[in-house]
């Protein structure tokens, strides 16, 4: 179902860069002036400049948390989960019977609050990043599976028949026709999973973590009412999430340059 959102997003109109930047700058300015002008206590909303100062001052902590949560937890879980989803989709493609059931069950499970398995996996794999990677892997698995299964069904009957008349082997029709045809769907899955990966890694840390990590820092600093540090972590998370999404979008553009949705102008 999230696939729908991504497809709707990518089909949206492209406007200029200037209006959103102006709006963003205006909001930041309003935030800064408003919090200073009305003397809003920093335990409710710290001014933007205080957050920026905090980010520079504690860049070492921020980097440590980032590498714990994103580089170790989210990224490895993302690779494992997306890889496993992709491989199971490839396997189920050879067993049509399995494929129908997997698509239904996968769609159902993708809509479930999968994040709830975090406490179980933290119990099984310990407090360190391995349990976060496990949560991320499970969360990424189903969207990736469903999208790949859908993508593998994207090549039309005519095209497959043509491959058959060429006497193409399974591997050949896979690499030359069906995987390229599936690529837009696969990248949809990969994009959905970028956000899920960060959410999974951060929320799993609420259930137990060594004394580093973005989720750990957010929940402890919130408890100590150090909201500038919390906002600093959120900025890092937002930047990391957007950059991750951006990298996958660039890969998609390079890999599916032929697809109508990638046309520009």
């Amino acid at each position: 179902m999230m696939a729908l959102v991504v497809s709707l997003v990518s089909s949206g109109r492209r406007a200029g860069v200037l209006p959103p930047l102006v709006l963003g700058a205006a909001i930041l300015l309003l935030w800064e002036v408003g919090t200073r002008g009305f003397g809003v206590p920093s335990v409710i909303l710290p001014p933007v400049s205080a957050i920026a100062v905090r980010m520079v001052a504690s860049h070492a902590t921020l980097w440590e948390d980032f590498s714990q949560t994103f580089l170790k937890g989210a990224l490895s879980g993302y690779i494992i989960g997306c890889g496993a989803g992709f491989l199971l989709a490839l396997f189920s493609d050879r067993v049509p019977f399995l494929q129908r059931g997997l698509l239904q069950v996968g769609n159902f499970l993708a809509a479930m609050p999968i994040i709830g398995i975090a406490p179980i996996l933290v119990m099984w794999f310990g407090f360190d990043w391995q349990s976060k990677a496990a949560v991320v892997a499970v969360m990424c698995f189903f969207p990736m599976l469903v999208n790949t299964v859908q993508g593998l069904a994207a090549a039309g009957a005519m095209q497959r028949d043509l491959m058959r008349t060429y006497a193409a082997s399974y591997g050949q029709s896979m690499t030359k026709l069906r995987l390229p045809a599936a690529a837009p769907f696969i990248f949809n899955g990969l994009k959905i999973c970028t956000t899920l990966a960060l959410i999974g890694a951060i929320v799993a840390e609420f259930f137990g973590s060594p004394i580093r990590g973005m989720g750990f820092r957010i929940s402890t600093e919130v408890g100590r009412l150090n909201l500038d540090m919390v906002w600093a972590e959120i900025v890092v998370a937002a930047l990391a999430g957007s950059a991750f999404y951006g990298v996958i979008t660039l890969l998609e553009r390079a890999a599916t340059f032929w697809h109508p949705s990638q046309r520009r102008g």
Partner: protein
Amino acid sequence: MRTMQSVLIVVGGIMAIWLAAVPFMNIKWEANMASRAGVEVSIPEGGLRRASAVALVFTNPHLIPGTYVQEKPRLPGPQQVVAELWATTAGEAVTSNRSLVYHAGVTLTGTVAGFLFGTALGVLLAVAIVHVRVIDASIMPWVIASQTIPILALAPMIIVVMNSVGITGLVPKAIISAYLSFFPVVVGMVKGLRSPDAMQMDLLKTYNASAAQTFWKLRLPAAAPFLFPSLKIGIAASLVGAIVGELPTGAVAGLGARLLAGSYYGQTVQIWSALFGAAILAAILVGAVGLIQAFALKRMGFAR
């Protein structure tokens, strides 16, 4: 029918894997307890901690039945989860705080309040985006960018900040839910309001229809098939938001609180039953939106 059959086989396969995994996950605890109780257990060289679970299961088949009925198993058996679900739904009064129905109800109110608020806001913003160019150009990119940000990470901060200004309970949860359900609704609704093609718009122009008439008679009805799939996504996201919103304050009630309490006290069966409760709730909510969708679209003449 064949789809039904293959779904059943896949679900059956998952159940089989689950049942088969239980002894391997729980054997160490069982072996430890058995050896303390003086039952003969064959433990390989190097002690229990370093022994492989697979070897333990195969060398101690007599311990397998015990792995299914432990009180705090690493992996509870399906029958334990079902029994707990039954005991905490049918076996308790609905108002009792041991009743899963009570906790699901607490989460549900937050979910539904947030969902309704988020949907209303999303529809309004979509209408504004479609009609006002400046809003389209300046806000839409932010709406899209906000999807790449792990919004759930904001949940604890929202809860604590609202707590410090004296707002607790339903409202902070509903705000998180609203934020999460708002995005899919905006995207779907914008797409839907723009779906009437040039011919249809031209027809209304030849009728000399005003902007308001175009909106009520063409754009809004045309958006319905796009809105409902977004609502399904939105309500599922709302539920996740409400559950996560219950985590940081150590909330006393709600499915998220059950998850957290279960994880603090090692009550694995409780975690699993809360998890299944959440899944059942999600299925009911998405199913309810689906029913409304089927009914509404049929009345509007979209059904094939």
